[in-house]
């Protein structure tokens, strides 16, 4: 069991039991066992305050935004924009108009690939990604490059799963139009030195997009300090409802970009001959947005900032260290991704069993982990594995749950040998 001495851990001021009580699903049983939810990298559960806020909004305050001249709509618009302000504050920009809502990171990256890429990337240009990107930060750039006759270049990683910055430096040149890398790798947990990556990219005259899907739930982000050009996020990984996310972009870039989705709400004026576009962020938010989800996102941001992003980072780092030590002690288990700077993700393979079998069997003990390629097949290829099992932790996880994880893995190994 968790020994408080080995779990040196709890230096943070975070009360896990109190936090767990905020999450109704954590008291449910699955397969007759208490849920041990370790798939937070895929999606996170919702605290009562988010569930209640969404319900109250739908029950008492719901209305369309930016249109109606009646109170309900005016109030909904105000709440909607207040949520945008919360997102802006969370990511460290004073101007909420630099935040555009999308359905999540996938759509956010596609938006940049279209609205920036289709306008500014030309034949012969180069776009740089890394070898440890999610498919959402790979495929949109491949498609863009193919369409434009541009070239996709890839920053290699070392055997620990860290980007090799020297090689990145060599890839940069006056043809580099854009660099797109994640802040945290979803498959390995590596925290990339994005501030340095941005600085190097800018020195070469490139714009830099940071995929923040896996970082924004776990650490303090300051886009102005990073000086990145775009920073994406997914609400459902930050304890908010699914279907909402977005991105920060520098205003001068937003103003120069063409619309991605067109239709209502993103226009200034439409005649049958010609349409002029609204200013950002409306230009990039055609159609009725997911209003309720935006309100839920605001509540989720209040919740996590209430706990404190530094507290979250520190506690999750302790969980990571504790889990890493436990799993490293299991014979026949290999952790994939041993970067010095890691977020609370442990990806591993067993000599004895395939990740899908591991996932199905751990589920018998109520443990939810992800087995597969994590939408990061180039990462799997780089590390010579078809798939991994991934335990991704949140501040609502406990040391004891990692003890159960380790015991269950031992049972799987025994069964297959």
């Amino acid at each position, binding site marked *: 069991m968790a020994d408080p001495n080995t779990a040196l851990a709890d230096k943070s001021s975070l009360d896990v039991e109190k936090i767990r009580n905020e999450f109704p699903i954590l008291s449910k049983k699955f397969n007759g066992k208490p849920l041990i939810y370790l798939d937070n990298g895929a999606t996170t559960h919702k605290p009562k305050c988010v569930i209640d806020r969404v319900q109250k909004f739908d029950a008492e305050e719901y209305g369309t935004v930016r249109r109606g001249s009646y109170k309900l709509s005016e109030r909904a618009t105000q709440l909607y924009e207040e949520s945008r302000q919360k997102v802006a504050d969370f990511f460290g920009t004073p101007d909420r108009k630099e935040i555009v809502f999308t359905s999540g990171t996938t759509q956010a990256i596609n938006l940049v690939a279209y609205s920036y890429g289709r306008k500014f990337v030309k034949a012969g240009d180069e776009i740089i990604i890394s070898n440890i990107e999610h498919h959402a930060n790979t495929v949109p750039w491949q498609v863009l490059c193919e369409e434009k006759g541009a070239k996709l270049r890839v920053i290699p990683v070392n055997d620990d799963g860290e980007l090799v910055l020297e090689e990145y430096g060599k890839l940069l040149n006056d043809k580099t139009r854009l660099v797109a890398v994640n802040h945290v790798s979803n498959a390995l947990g590596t925290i990339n030195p994005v501030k340095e990556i941005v600085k190097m990219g800018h020195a070469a005259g490139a714009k830099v997009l940071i995929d923040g899907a896996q970082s924004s739930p776990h650490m303090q982000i300051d886009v102005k300090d990073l000086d990145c050009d775009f920073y994406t996020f997914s609400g459902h990984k930050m304890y908010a409802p699914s279907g909402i996310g977005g991105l920060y972009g520098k205003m001068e870039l937003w103003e120069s970009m063409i619309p991605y989705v067109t239709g209502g709400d993103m226009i200034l004026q439409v005649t049958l001959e010609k349409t002029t576009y609204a200013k950002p962020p409306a230009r990039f938010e055609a159609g009725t947005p997911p209003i309720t989800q935006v309100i839920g996102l605001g509540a989720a941001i209040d919740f996590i900032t209430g706990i404190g992003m530094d507290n979250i980072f520190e506690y999750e780092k302790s969980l990571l260290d504790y889990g890493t030590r436990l799993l490293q002690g299991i014979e026949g288990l290999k952790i994939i991704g041993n970067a010095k700077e890691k977020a609370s993700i442990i990806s591993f393979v067993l000599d004895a069993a395939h990740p899908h079998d591991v996932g199905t069997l751990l589920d*018998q003990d109520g443990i939810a982990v992800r087995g597969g390629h994590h939408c990061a097949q180039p990462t799997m290829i780089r590390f010579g594995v078809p*798939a991994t099992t991934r335990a991704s932790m949140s501040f609502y996880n406990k040391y004891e749950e990692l003890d159960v994880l380790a015991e269950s893995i031992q049972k799987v190994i025994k*069964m297959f040998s």
Partner: protein
Amino acid sequence: MSYDNELYQQVILDHNRNPRNFREIKSATHSCHGVNPLCGDDMTVYLDVDSEKGVIQDISFVGTGCAISKASSSLMTAFLKGKSLEESRVIFNEFHKMVLGEFDPEKQENHLGKLKLFLGIREYPSRTKCASLAWHTMIGALDRKTEGVSTE
């Protein structure tokens, strides 16, 4: 403590550890490459068919995948060797419907023999494709699907 799981029975664990017919057939008359893009399972099924008699003389597979996919491939090859093409298609249909929960060999007449071991997988919708990949690939080979098959 150990797992008592209807899916991972001893026979399946054994076929996973020691897959039968896990080899290439150099003189194969039919072959097909099958993938499950969701989980990355990847295999090739080889058949040596006597075209005059319409009988599978030899059948084998190579590839990577989970225990369910490997055991299913192994049991399939062992079961189909010597069967006619017609029988093989009937068995494919029954097996495919069984793992989807649309055919119950405990209640309906069938030709599945020990393949009934995979009945339990209908309780695990996320894993049915692991069991059926080899079978789709086998049919793909018989149907000359040169572009390969995919579970998606």
